[in-house]
């Protein structure tokens, strides 16, 4: 018998974690308000994304860009040895890509919070370790959504990323990650605990498809779209990197209206509202 089991002063209302005694069944009864049919109107109708904190894990975000507006917080992540350093980031965006992603999220969820975690820009060396440290930090902040338009192919980071992705899943942080269309193993988009996104060629930003042949789970707009870029400008781009923030933005809309949804419930809502399932396209 362990010390914990001998201590009877457990708070009586604590939810059971490892088993479900008969007298605890009532305590986990949840209020459900699922409609007969999950529609886009139910999922995000009237939502602006207000109150949802979206993290852009990328090259930084240009605050004040007309397509982005306010950036609520911006940090830069560096790693030296085993130590992770997170500092306020005043550099803006070193490439333009993070700004592009933030602009897409903002266009769909105009009132969500945008938080920038810069993990790119210091060159190729050590970029995998910085990605890992940045993601860990973002999950610790309890962001509602993390947009990851990037991946690593380094096998040594795969198991750590997997653990982080599962950790995010149980803490209700939704990781939305760009899929790869090349014949290599890369992470974290392939993990089932994240939402992986590829591109379609249609123009509507709210058109997205559920893919019945995973591992790529959803296809969103990622083709020839004008995205925010450096200096308040715009560029016309194509890539899964831009499909990903479309799903991140839609997730922000859904979570603003239904903050109680867990990641697996949210993925089900995405499935049910996908353009090829039950959603309007």
């Amino acid at each position, binding site marked *: 018998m362990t010390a914990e089991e001998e201590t009877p002063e457990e708070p009586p209302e604590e939810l059971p974690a490892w088993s479900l005694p008969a007298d605890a069944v009532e305590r986990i009864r949840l209020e459900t308000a699922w409609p007969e049919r999950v529609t886009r109107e139910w999922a995000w109708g009237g939502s602006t994304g207000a109150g949802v904190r979206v993290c852009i894990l990328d*090259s930084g975000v240009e605050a004040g860009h007309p397509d982005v507006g306010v950036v609520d917080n911006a940090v830069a992540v560096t790693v030296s040895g085993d130590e992770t350093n997170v500092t306020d980031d005043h550099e803006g965006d*070193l*490439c*333009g*890509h993070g700004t592009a992603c933030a602009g897409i999220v903002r266009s769909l969820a105009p009132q969500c919070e945008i938080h920038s975690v810069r993990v*790119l*820009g*210091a*060159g*190729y*060396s050590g*970029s995998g370790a910085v990605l890992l440290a940045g993601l860990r930090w973002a999950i610790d902040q309890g962001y509602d959504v993390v947009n990851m*338009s*990037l*991946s*690593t*192919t*380094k*096998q040594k980071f795969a198991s750590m990323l997997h653990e982080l992705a599962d950790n995010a899943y149980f803490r209700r942080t939704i990781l939305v990650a*760009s899929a*790869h*269309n*090349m*014949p*290599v*193993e*890369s992470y974290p988009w392939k993990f089932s605990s994240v939402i992986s996104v590829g*591109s*379609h*060629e249609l123009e509507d930003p709210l058109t997205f498809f559920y893919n019945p042949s995973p591992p790529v789970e959803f296809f969103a707009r990622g*083709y*020839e779209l004008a995205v925010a*870029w*450096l*200096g308040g*400008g*715009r*560029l*016309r*781009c*194509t*890539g*899964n*990197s831009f499909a990903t923030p479309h799903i991140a933005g839609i997730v922000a809309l859904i979570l603003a209206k239904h903050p109680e949804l867990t990641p697996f419930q949210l993925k089900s809502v995405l499935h049910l509202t996908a353009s090829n399932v039950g959603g309007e396209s």
Partner: protein
Amino acid sequence: MSEDLRAAVAAGVLGAEESHRELLQSVVEVARAIFRAKASSIFLLDEAADELVFEAVAGEGAGELVGKRFPSSTGIAGWVLVTRQPLVIDDVTADRRFGRDVAESTGYVPKGLMAVPLLHEERSLGVLEVLDRPTDTRFTLKEMDLLGAFANQAAIALDLLQRARRARAALDGDGDAALLARVATKLEQRGDDEDDDDGSRAAAVQLLRALEQLL
């Protein structure tokens, strides 16, 4: 015998470098032709210097760019390398600052570019770029897949090129690899002896096996 072996391997390696360069050149030439582009180039990552190096160029800039270097964090090529995500941009000139950044790495300001990472096993080896497709043709995601297929071929060629260079460094250099090459040469010499009287070759091989396990 070992000198002969050394010379033979060195000659083989030098030959390999040339044919791999030809292979890389043919990849950029074909990429340029298929996409009817103004130029196409392959950058190789120099991990020690954390820089991208022009390895092969077809079309615009072909004469002067090979061997030119820039930091691996620079612009689109750097971003594509680090994120492992392909990217297509249609109107580079819409952003002057961006245009200048690109020009630094291409020698001129293109209107549009496609960039795809060169991935082999778990390594990001470099970037393949295709510059200025004709504006009258509609670009599709199928072309993106085609570019990915090309990139895969280029990555295999780059991997072979890097292996050939490492092999040559192992034979000629002063580093750890050179030490290993010298050990291999000595083992080869001992192996040529009629017998291993003092048992030193057998002991050395045993030691190497233990070292291999340790590593």
